[in-house]
């Protein structure tokens, strides 16, 4: 009798934990979507806020986040991929290479608020970029760099050495091997990693707090050194800073829905690419 009881107990513990974890996700999505969908409308995502941000849409926040993601991509992707190429293709096992790997692992563990401080000190103050979407984008770029390097390196590792040897044996230089054979074959894997990193960066708030996010701007950001609104900060502002919290609560839920949809769309694209690549192999 005791045996069956302990087996039942074990089963409930394990299954219970898994269900609880799924429940967390369920509650989060249910609460946000059930209360947020009502304020979702075409006007909500295509109009700037009006009447002291108690009405109207959140267009500047959306465009701000897209601006940020664009600048993060332009900065982090080239550097990230180049570094991964060096580590996987060129680097010989040496003290230097292990130092680079160690610093990447540690950079991934640094709290995002400290990236905010570094962005403030480097981009806003030292490089005199001031508080702008450029400073914030570059700060997010630094934050994303270690993740892009790690995912790109994993994608490069999946390419068998026989490919490299085949090209080299034909008299190609190492760079030509990378350019013509390794990168094209690793592209789906790299793309998946980049998109997942960007969806994570788009959801970050701490790094952009001091590097240029604004409470409110008239229209959408149009130039690189303007301040900007961003979806995560807009949600934070609507839920803690705004003048009439009760009145703007539906807007806050709406913003949360848009933010989560943006992040999920990016994730789904990444999964689709990874799925297509896995089945096609």
């Amino acid at each position, binding site marked *: 009798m005791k045996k069956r009881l302990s087996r039942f107990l074990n089963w409930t513990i394990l299954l219970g934990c898994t269900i609880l974890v799924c429940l967390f996700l369920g509650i989060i999505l249910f609460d946000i979507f059930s209360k947020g969908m009502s304020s979702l409308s075409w006007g909500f995502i295509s109009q700037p806020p009006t009447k002291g941000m108690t009405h109207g849409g959140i267009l500047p926040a959306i465009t701000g986040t897209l601006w940020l993601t664009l600048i993060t991509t332009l900065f982090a992707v080239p550097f990230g991929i180049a570094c991964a190429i060096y580590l996987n293709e060129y680097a*010989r*096992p040496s003290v230097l290479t292990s130092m680079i790997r160690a610093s990447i692992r540690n950079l991934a563990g640094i709290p995002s608020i400290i990236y905010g401080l570094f962005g403030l000190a480097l981009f806003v103050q030292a490089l005199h970029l001031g508080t702008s979407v450029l400073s914030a984008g570059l700060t997010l770029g630094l934050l994303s760099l270690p993740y892009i390097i790690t995912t790109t390196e994993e994608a490069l590792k999946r390419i*068998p050495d*026989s*490919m*490299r*040897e*085949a*090209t*080299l*044996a*034909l*008299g*190609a*230089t190492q760079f*030509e091997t990378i350019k*013509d*054979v390794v990168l*094209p*074959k690793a592209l789906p894997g790299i793309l998946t990693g980049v998109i997942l990193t960007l969806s994570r960066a788009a959801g970050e708030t701490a790094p952009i707090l001091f590097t240029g996010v604004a409470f409110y701007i008239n229209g959408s950001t149009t130039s690189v050194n303007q301040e900007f609104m961003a979806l995560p900060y807009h949600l934070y502002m609507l839920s803690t800073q705004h003048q009439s919290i009760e009145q703007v609560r539906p807007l806050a839920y709406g913003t949360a829905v848009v933010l989560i949809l943006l992040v999920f769309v990016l994730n789904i694209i990444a999964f689709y690419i990874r799925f297509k690549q896995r089945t096609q192999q």
Partner: protein
Amino acid sequence: MDQIKLSAHSLNLYFGQKQILKNINIDFPKNQVTSLIGPSGCGKSTLLRCFNRMHDLSSDAKIEGSIKLDDLDIYDKKNSVTEIRKRIGMVFQKPNPLPKSIYENMSYALNIHQFPKNEIQKLIESALKESYLWEEVKDELKKPAVKLSGGQQQRLCIARTTVLRPEVILMDEPCSALDPISTRKIEELIVSLKKDYTIVIVTHNMQQAQRISDKVAFMYLGELVEFGNCQDVFQNPQNELTKNYVGGHFG
């Protein structure tokens, strides 16, 4: 005496501390097939890869001595490795077509070495014909190379190498991953290529060595134990080790 195309002179190779090749002196006669045979781990593949500087990539490989292609020392720093690999092609054990179409597999090396654009189509066709592959693929050149069968892929790899018109072709157990019928086809192809290229082939297969090679080199524990004409080495091997290894396989 045969004219020497490719030769190694007191060649030593170390991986880290371990010495893999000990004082190898060997000459490969022009336009003939030389087989490298020996128990696994005797260093025959490692030796083969020295000839087109494939060890440059591995970090802890250290090479002493020299390798001459005609009178050019391929390990001399001022010679560009890409030029050497253009003159010495290599075919690998497992067929490794590039992840591109059949046509691109062939045209890739030609573009890299800036062959004149108008000649490329002609060169590809003749190389594929030489490798008896043209009939099977001529109307589906755009198809991805991985869709071909194992034997076809290996012949494509050989065609991809010969299209550059190299002087030497190194083959690292080219048929070990193929079925007997494809193996026979590759062997015929090797014999037909003999008239244009010097071929050095590493093989485990004694019958294959006897069928296609003019010269045979037997290696054991990183040393070149015996080298001579195919008949001599197989029928009356001088060295005791060769006799045991080759014993019973001749005739």
